[in-house]
């Protein structure tokens, strides 16, 4: 599907453009103007001559240039009329932000089907209605009323909910990861979730696809598309609304056992998707998959704290992540280094002991990463009085450069004293997690199943 008019329009008309404080239209205008670059933005509002000091047009037909994308934020009852004008203007794409359609009941659904009738006949790509809009950091497009523009990156975040996206964008603003696309598809009256999924699968800027939704309109179509796309790109999914609602009258065992939540999970698994249980896990896993390569099962853990190492071991075990046995060469190297604490663990996890300075981390990392059947590393750092976080981070970054095919995930645990080193790690695309459990979940996604 050609969605260029949606993701990289040269000319955009905002219908319902306003600078009234507290309005959706104001958010749209600000976002589109702020990130306009070479893009030409036209403001349409018959009731105002100027918005943010820019001259408005009373209707889209008054614009004498061709319009690629029309973004509509007007009351539902006049959307039909506006869309009709857009069709006459021969716009290529439309985003309807306005709510008051199928989500409110039969009257809204009727209105929605009338609007769809228009756009289908005119062969116009339609996003929405009832959505946040579309953000495409790589082309500088923010056709949404989100509070911020997200960082550019390689995650495509596609969500049924718009409000969740707003918070994700805000939360990720000071992080090192970013997005190739952020969009909420709303009622998916025109372009559907499977359409977007298929598009993201082919999009060169997207490396990882992250999904949030509560329900699917056409489960089978989603399943078929997801199964294809997941062969080439990881798809991570967070499904909301898994609580069982009132049970229908039981007619068969299969009927009573096959609750919606179970079937969704089975479908995700069968289609090769990674299902996660929280928004944090969605982002944790996305970050790992964007920054690190995948590997075979069998990893090594290095820690300067016994407790943290034990927790990490437990979580890895629960998730089926195997810890590779140290071979005699690795053991010998560490023993002979003369700098390692004599009480080091001799096993995987390698406990370099709490008073470890950076040299011990370096010895352990160098020895372990060189062992052939250690396919990736989880490196834990608890914050002791003598710990050297920045030096440790640099050693890890250096090891990563030498072994680009072995994923490294870090668990630098702490706050004030640790944060500068975490920032350094993440700037160098080493994903860090504050808790070994989060790191284990992220690592699980990095391990190939077969």
């Amino acid at each position, binding site marked *: 599907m050609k969605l260029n008019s949606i993701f990289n329009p040269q000319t955009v008309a905002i219908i319902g453009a306003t600078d009234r404080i507290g309005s959706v239209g104001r958010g749209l205008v600000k976002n589109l103007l702020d990130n306009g670059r070479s893009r030409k933005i036209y403001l349409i509002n018959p009731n105002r001559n100027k918005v943010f000091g820019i001259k408005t047009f009373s209707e889209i037909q008054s614009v004498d240039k061709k319009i690629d994308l029309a973004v509509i934020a007007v009351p539902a009852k006049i959307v039909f009329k506006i869309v009709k004008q857009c069709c006459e203007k021969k716009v290529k794409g439309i985003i309807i932000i306005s709510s008051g359609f199928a989500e409110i009941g039969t009257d809204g659904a009727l209105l929605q089907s009338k609007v769809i009738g228009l756009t289908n006949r005119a062969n116009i790509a339609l996003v929405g209605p009832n959505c946040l809009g579309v953000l495409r950091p790589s082309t500088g497009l923010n056709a949404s009323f989100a509070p911020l523009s997200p960082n550019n990156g390689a995650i495509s975040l596609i969500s049924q909910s718009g409000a969740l996206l707003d918070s994700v964008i805000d939360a990720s603003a000071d992080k090192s990861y970013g997005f190739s696309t952020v969009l909420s598809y709303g009622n998916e009256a025109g372009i559907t979730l499977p359409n977007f999924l298929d598009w993201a699968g082919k999009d060169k800027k997207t490396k990882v696809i992250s999904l949030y939704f509560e*329900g*699917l309109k056409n*489960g*089978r179509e989603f*399943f078929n598309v997801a199964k294809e796309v997941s062969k080439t790109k990881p798809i991570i999914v967070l499904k909301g609304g898994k609580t069982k609602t009132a049970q229908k009258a*039981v*007619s*068969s*065992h*299969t*009927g009573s*056992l*096959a609750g*919606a939540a*179970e*079937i*969704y*999970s*089975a*479908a995700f698994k*069968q289609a090769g998707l990674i299902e996660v249980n929280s928004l944090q896990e969605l982002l944790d896993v996305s970050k790992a998959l964007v920054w690190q390569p995948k590997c075979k099962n069998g990893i090594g853990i290095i820690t300067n704290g016994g407790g943290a190492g034990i927790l990490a071991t437990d979580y890895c075990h629960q998730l089926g992540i195997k810890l590779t046995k140290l071979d005699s060469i690795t053991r010998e190297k560490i023993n002979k280094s003369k700098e390692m604490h004599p009480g080091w663990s001799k096993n995987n996890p390698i406990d370099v002991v709490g008073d470890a300075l950076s040299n011990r981390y370096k010895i352990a990392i160098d020895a372990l990463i060189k062992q052939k059947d250690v396919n990736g590393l989880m490196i834990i750092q608890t914050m002791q009085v003598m710990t050297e976080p920045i030096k440790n981070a640099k050693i890890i970054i250096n090891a990563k450069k030498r072994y680009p095919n072995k994923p490294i995930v870090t668990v630098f645990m702490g706050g004030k004293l640790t944060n500068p080193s975490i920032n350094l790690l993440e700037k160098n695309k080493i994903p860090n997690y504050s808790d070994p459990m989060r790191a284990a979940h992220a690592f699980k996604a990095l391990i190939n199943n077969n």
Partner: protein
Amino acid sequence: MILSFDQSKKLLTKYKIPFVKGELVESKTAAFNFVKKYGYPVVLKIDLPNILHKTDIGGVILDINNKEKLILSWDKLSKLGKVLIQKQIGGVGLIIGAKKDPIFGPIIMFGLGGIFAEALKDVSFRLAPINKKEAKEMISEIKGYKILKGYRGQEPVNLLKLEQILLLLSDLITKEKIQEIDLNPVMADSKKAIIVDAKILI
């Protein structure tokens, strides 16, 4: 609507899904003839398609291994409705089911039977149609897989036969206009896996 015993048997036979030897018998003599042909032990059941748990109303009598018990059981059940006689077979009880899901269409289910399915929900699902690899995964991902593999010296059950039933049922639910189907129990041992009871909703 729920299919009768004969209709169910016919549909399963069409898909070559192995059903235990059994027939509706209208007289004691017919029951005796069945035993003559197939031997003891046998099970008597009432054929009331609308009842989910036949055992709850005393509609299933197991371990009938002599003439005396057969007569007693016949007298008891024939008052309640049509009587079905079946060869009693041992093994691990499993449930294999399928249904049309409103979101995803045909789906298929596998699990340990009886209380394990209901109380522990130890079942796995896939969208149908499934392939051989998916059938294998369905079997191996339930918690009770250890029991199937042979626990504490028990012989392992024939997993290939179970895979086969899954594949056949997957074919059935994909092609037929039925809503839900329970094959419950499916009895499996080291040699075979056979459907003992089926409930089919159209």
